[in-house]
């Protein structure tokens, strides 16, 4: 963090808006689409991972990341900002475990990560993070899904979409979501939601899916993603 500026770069406009945060949200809205659905027995995270060239080694970089054994997250927006927040979140989780010898509850992790994001809107010389996070977790026998914004605000969702075309994505989810959805159906619905804004052919290399249920969080392997895609087509 730069110590050269003692004043915040995020300042109010005359209309009462924090313009930097608005711009950060615009950066998120321009990012690759990501979708998440909370089912009755788990949470699914899905995101588009299109690379600009066939020369990219798709499997060496991941967007869906594990934070603890039972919490994972994905993003829309700027990749490098995301990497920092993943590291922060993991450190926060381990610190919690060191102090309490217990896995950090999802709600506590989200609050602490959101606090970090808020700090960057009110500290000297830094800009807000250009990502919105989708955090999926499982503790005390139930699923959790949260979104963290560049402003530091966090929301609990049943299902949501972020990034390019998120409005259409949310409309699609509103129609398809119901409380009794099971995880398998939720994965299908998530993939279909991504497909709505997908240009070209969806393959196991240009999307990523993460699942969170009672056995914990895991990112699906490409072959598992391929199976799901096959059942959609």
């Amino acid at each position: 963090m730069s110590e050269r500026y003692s004043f915040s770069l995020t300042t109010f406009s005359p209309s009462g808006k924090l313009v930097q945060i608005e711009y950060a949200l615009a950066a998120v809205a321009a990012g690759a689409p990501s979708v998440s659905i909370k089912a009755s027995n788990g949470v699914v995270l899905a995101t588009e991972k299109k690379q600009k060239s066939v020369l990219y080694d798709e499997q060496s970089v991941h967007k869906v990341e594990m934070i603890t054994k039972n919490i994972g997250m994905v993003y829309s927006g700027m990749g490098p900002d995301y990497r920092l927040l993943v590291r922060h979140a993991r450190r926060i989780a381990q610190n919690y475990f060191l102090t309490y010898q217990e896995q950090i509850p999802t709600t506590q992790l989200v609050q602490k990560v959101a606090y970090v994001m808020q700090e960057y809107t009110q500290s000297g010389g830094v800009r807000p993070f250009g990502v919105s996070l989708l955090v999926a977790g499982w503790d005390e026998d139930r699923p959790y899904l949260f979104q963290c914004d560049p402003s530091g605000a966090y929301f609990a969702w049943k299902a949501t979409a972020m990034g390019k075309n998120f409005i259409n994505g949310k409309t699609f989810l509103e129609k398809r979501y119901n409380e009794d959805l099971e995880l398998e159906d939720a994965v299908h619905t998530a993939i279909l939601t991504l497909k709505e804004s997908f240009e070209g052919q969806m393959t196991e290399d240009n999307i990523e899916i993460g699942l969170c249920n009672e056995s914990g969080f895991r990112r699906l392997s490409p072959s598992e993603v391929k199976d799901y895609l096959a059942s959609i087509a």
Partner: protein
Amino acid sequence: MAAEQFGFSGELWGNGPTPGGFYSTPGGTTTPQHGPTKHTLHPMTMGTSVLGVKFDGGVVVAADMLGSYGSLARYRNISRVMKVNNTTVLAGAGDYADYQFLKEVLDQKIIDDELLGDGHSFSPKAIFSWLTRVMYNRRTRFNPLWNQMVIGGFHAGKPFLGYVDKIGVAYEAPTIATGMGAYMAQPLLRDALEKKPNMSQSEALALLEKCLKVLFYRDARSFNKFEFAIVTEAGVEILQPRSAEANWSIAHLIKGYE
């Protein structure tokens, strides 16, 4: 600095002993030459043994209500047990001021956790782990909380009983006794537990009362007024202070007793 206010320049007091330094006492000078004492290593008002035992469906922790000032039984109505939250209690032996300090910190911590409004509450094990880290870190900085703490709780259908002390030693056990209790009460507790591994709440209370009575007879820093804190599925209950029926009639037979 006061000298400058009154228009004096230079020293206010020269060629003599430093202010307050008239006498040299063993164990340290009375002059504040090294600045204020920052790392206190001398406990003052102290509490004696704390006892704890698990029973079928919960745990009970007991401590007497005396704050000793050396050999003076100075404060005879102090509570050394506290409710942490609905699943945990903590009792403190050792320096009472350090226990009070920790109580404040822990109370505030619980409030701060409530304020997050996410329905999360600390389990007994989490409090125990937090306390261990605090005590050990203080010890490492040569500024210990001069206590032996007993944490009792009930969470996820299981009773919890743990011990943390001023040097950061921490362990869980089905019976715990600190101070004199470790020598006199622990054998009684362990024997009773071996004979009846799943004793009832009333049996556990009776056992602790017996141990407290023995300690009152033999621990010179104890007092016959104590509190029980019981944690079960239903929550925390700190009973009203009570006393044991002590029988001193055979005392005159003990050599040395007047």
